[in-house]
């Protein structure tokens, strides 16, 4: 019998509240809820509900609610936030949030906790880490963290402690496009979606994995400026829906289509020869290699019709240079990530869209921008350095193979923590300090992670909730949410320099602390206090602005401050406007641009379409090449994942407001496949392979290839502390095998599964 309206009214509000673990030690529920205290006037800050970190503007409403909107001063963000961002306050005063340090009292992972004071927490951690350091060396402790200010402080502690083993989540999510850019351009590159007239997208899910300025930019280009969007993606995502053309490409074969696009550009003489001659090295080797990658060949690999590849390439070239091939974000589609991302970049390089409107460009930070202007248009920020930091001789655990050299300074290969712990490769890890990271969801092979966490001598987790990973900690440190934290000024430069800053909006709830303070206080306890000479965040901020109080006040008041006007070195109109504004600006080239100043931080100083450096690191990979990979058995279905607009991949599933929007992920399955398996929408199903087995329910939809199934990531937590998320949906990490891709060190997130009705 369905709830009728009356019982519904009576039961209203009971839904998720009653199932909360009212007794979970250290939770807001256990410690009582105080009135929110904070600014009723809007405070500019930075969101942290996902890793995009959009500028926000927040204020406390009637002492019981925080209204969060985008910061209107950040023009390209347009005062908007997504659902995740808007729900920040729901996390802030969630009764299940942990606001008191905890120590484990039963078996690890069993879920028995006891509240302790910070002193005891620090003392316990310091005793254990110092003991392990004395017995096995500092390198046997691994540190991993969400990046930004958080990782800055934790990794500083790691250095002070003497361990080289610091990791971000890069190798489980966005690592490979960064690594590929390093190899080709010498550093990260950005995309100018908002000015693009033709955008080719390989499953970059910008309309669900929202990056506010890019999402807005692309929609604006599409709807107001008539840009054409072509999407290659196995799933009919929102981006695919908004595309002018969608091709349900076979998972992991994007590289074939990208290479075929390059093939057509070269074969049909559509590429920008002048650009290539001036800025590119390794073109001939590349051209020779792609000679074989005809659209017909690509069709046989990817199921994308050859004539469409050819036509799209011609349309793309016609729109160039104000056209781009999006190089993506989450990049764990195939073990050939390095080749795939490089092939995507190559398709941009060939049309010469670098530093052109609607193409790719480099961020213009203050130092380089000021050089062009011949004037101090934008202030530069000082970086605090600490004298006498200990020298670390030990090698990182992911330094076994030279081919991964480019990852070491980009977050490392996160999953090597498992190998080092379980197999002592290259040496034995003994402890893990993790902060705001949830590898149990995003890293592959969950069972192996559990094994790792069980085997370690000591595990510390700093988080807001007892995440699936934090559930295995010995000591749990409750971090303040971003709405309660002050942090350093951050660089947000795009086509011109910009800064923004995170500021507290509400007074700290419960007994939580910001990361910078936690790691500083722990350093004191570890006996490394001298490496944290700053008193507080204000000291650090003042140091950054070199005591320019007015600048600091301005950045804090406006929240987002941009300097100068947008500059793309090869865009004539921008360069002439720039040169006209600054009398001491560098002289403009004959063609009216700064094209002669465009250089790349590669060994050759050029874009390395083929690279000797890479060839040395990873023999055979100097030239971009297609290699066939097998990611599933013949009788299995491809299993792919993606991000949904209301959650991140691992951190928001327990936030009440977001859990109320979606707490369960269905497995998308094509009607033909579902028919063969006798599955209907809503049916309970088992999804299984050699790695693991999950139960979930089916969503039968034509929006997926018949040989592929899909689920949104982040659901199906298995620890009892996440009461709203636990046991709901498919746990993707439990089905993904432990595979590391060459060069990029990426964790592979495409695999094969079988599906059966239960």
């Amino acid at each position, binding site marked *: 019998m*369905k*709830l*009728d*309206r*009356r019982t*519904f*009214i009576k039961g209203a509000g009971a*839904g998720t509240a009653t199932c909360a673990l009212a007794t979970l030690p250290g939770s807001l529920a256990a410690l009582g809820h105080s009135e929110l205290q904070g600014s009723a006037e809007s405070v500019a800050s930075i969101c942290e509900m996902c890793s995009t970190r959009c500028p926000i503007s927040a204020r406390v409403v009637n002492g019981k609610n925080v209204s969060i909107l985008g910061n209107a001063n950040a023009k390209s963000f347009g005062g908007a936030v997504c659902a995740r961002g808007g729900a920040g306050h729901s996390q802030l005063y969630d009764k299940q949030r942990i606001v008191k340090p905890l120590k484990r009292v039963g078996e690890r992972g069993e879920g028995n906790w006891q509240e302790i004071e910070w002193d005891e927490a620090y003392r316990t951690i310091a005793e254990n880490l110092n003991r392990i350091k004395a017995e096995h060396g500092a390198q046997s402790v691994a540190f991993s963290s969400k990046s930004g200010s958080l990782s800055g402080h934790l990794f500083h502690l790691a250095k002070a402690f003497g361990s080289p083993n610091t990791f971000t989540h890069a190798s489980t999510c966005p690592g490979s496009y960064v690594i590929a850019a390093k190899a080709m351009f010498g550093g990260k590159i950005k995309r100018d979606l908002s000015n693009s007239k033709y955008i080719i997208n390989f499953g970059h899910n910008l309309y669900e994995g929202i990056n506010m300025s890019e999402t807005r930019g692309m929609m604006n280009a599409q709807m107001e400026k008539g840009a054409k969007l072509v999407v290659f993606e196995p799933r009919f995502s929102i981006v695919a829906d908004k595309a002018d053309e969608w091709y349900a490409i076979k998972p992991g074969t994007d590289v074939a289509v990208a290479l075929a696009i390059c093939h057509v550009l070269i074969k049909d003489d559509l590429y920008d020869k002048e650009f290539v001659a001036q800025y590119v090295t390794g073109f001939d080797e590349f051209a020779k290699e792609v000679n074989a990658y005809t659209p017909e060949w690509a069709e046989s690999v990817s199921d994308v019709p050859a004539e469409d590849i050819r036509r799209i390439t011609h349309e793309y070239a016609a729109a160039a240079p104000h056209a781009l091939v999006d190089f993506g974000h989450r990049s764990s589609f195939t073990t050939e990530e390095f080749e795939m991302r490089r092939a995507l970049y190559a398709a941009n390089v060939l049309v010469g869209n670098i530093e052109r409107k609607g193409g790719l460009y480099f961020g213009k930070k203050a130092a380089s921008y000021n050089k062009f202007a011949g004037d101090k248009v934008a202030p530069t920020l000082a970086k605090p350095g600490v004298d006498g930091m200990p020298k670390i001789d030990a090698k990182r655990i992911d330094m076994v193979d030279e081919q991964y050299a480019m990852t070491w300074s980009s977050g490392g290969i996160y999953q090597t923590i498992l190998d080092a712990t379980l197999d002592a490769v290259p040496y034995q890890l003994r402890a893990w300090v993790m902060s705001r990271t949830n590898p149990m969801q995003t890293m592959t092979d969950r069972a192996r992670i559990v094994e790792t966490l069980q085997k370690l001598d000591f595990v510390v987790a700093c988080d807001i909730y007892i995440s699936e990973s934090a559930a295995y900690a010995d000591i749990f440190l409750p971090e303040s949410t971003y709405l309660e934290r002050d942090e350093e000024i951050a660089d947000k430069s795009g086509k011109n320099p910009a800064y923004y800053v995170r500021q507290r909006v509400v007074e700290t709830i419960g007994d939580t602390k910001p990361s910078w303070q936690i790691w500083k206080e722990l350093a004191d306890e570890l006996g490394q206090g001298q490496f944290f000479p700053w008193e507080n965040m204000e000291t650090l901020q003042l140091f950054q602005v070199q005591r320019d109080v007015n600048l600091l006040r301005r950045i804090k008041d406006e929240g987002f401050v941009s300097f100068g006007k947008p500059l793309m070195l090869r865009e004539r109109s921008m360069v002439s406007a720039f040169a006209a504004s600054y009398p001491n600006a560098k002289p403009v080239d004959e063609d009216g641009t700064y094209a002669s100043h465009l250089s790349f931080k590669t060994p050759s100083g050029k874009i390395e379409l083929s690279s000797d450096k890479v060839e040395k690191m990873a023999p055979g990979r100097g030239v971009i090449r297609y290699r066939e990979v097998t990611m599933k058995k013949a009788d299995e279905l491809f299993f792919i994942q993606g991000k*949904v*607009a*209301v959650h991140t991949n691992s951190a928001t599933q327990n936030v009440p407001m977001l859990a*109320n*929007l*979606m707490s*369960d*992920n*269905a497995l998308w399955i094509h009607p033909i496949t579902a028919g063969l398996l006798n599955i209907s929408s809503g049916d309970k199903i088992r999804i299984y392979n050699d790695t693991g087995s999950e139960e979930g329910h089916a*969503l039968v*939809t034509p*929006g997926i290839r018949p040989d592929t199934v899909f689920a*949104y990531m982040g659901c199906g937590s298995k620890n009892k502390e996440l009461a709203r998320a636990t046991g709901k949906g498919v746990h993707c990490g439990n089905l993904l095998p432990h595979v590391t891709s060459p060069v990029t060190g990426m964790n592979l997130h495409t695999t094969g599964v079988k599906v059966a009705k239960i």
Partner: protein
Amino acid sequence: MNNIWGSMEQYDPVVWNWIIAVYLFMAGLSAGSMLVAIGLKWYKQSRGQPTEGLPVIKAAAIIGPVAISLGMALLVLDLTKPFEFYHILLNYNLTSVMAWGVIALLIYIPLVFVFAALVFEKQVLQYAPWLAGILKVCRQVENSLNKLIFALGLGVGVYTGFLLSALISYPILNTAVLPALFLASALSVGSAGNILVATLFFSKKESDCIEQVHRIEYPVAFNEALCLVLLFVGLNFSGPAAQAATAAITTGTWASVFWIGVVGLGLVVPVLASTLAPKAWRHTKGFLITVSCSTIIGVLALRHFVVYAGQSYIS
């Protein structure tokens, strides 16, 4: 696409539940019993026959006030703010069918009590002799009162139908047939109720007035059936959404309720019983009780069917 927009429970098109169905039933029962009793009275008077102490009129004097009081109690309890129901007596929005219903009921209810008091004058005066004066005045205008009650009874009967037919997005409800259907079924449940109560409590012997009441059941049932046919035939010709709503009588639980309860118990059983049953049975207590119970359940089923199935199909 996964549902990422949250619970859809609040969008359930079925807003009104069984409480409203029972209220509509009670209002129909009260109005129907009054109409039948007053009609009978006039019939007898026109033939110069006595009307005092007729079991059917006594029954109506019980059913009329009790049913409407129970119905109103249910209605008030179903409000989300039952203790503030007096606002509905103070504020009237005359575009609302419900406001007109409130006005009608405000007059109807006291008059039904007066009707009952006049029927049971002796008993009333036994317990409340101080009412003698008022009852005397009432008795003097009894004929006018009866005319007024009759008119209000008709009003209440059709009002319950109009209440639902004003809901423009439900094809089954938003039809002019509904008030007629509800009036017809009010008459049928009114007569059945009267017969049941009369047979159980007031009839010492076989009484011809029961037989007379019994005789109107046949045309009433015919009218009710006609209304149902018109309703669904009409739906079938009123565009795709309305056409889809005809599924209400072919699929799901409510189709069973319709065929077994509304058609079976409410129409077929009484009609067959009064045409096919051996003469010897027709005036036995058991027969009368069985048949009138069948009709009552049928009408109760009709109200539930209309309320639930009616709200389940939205255009």
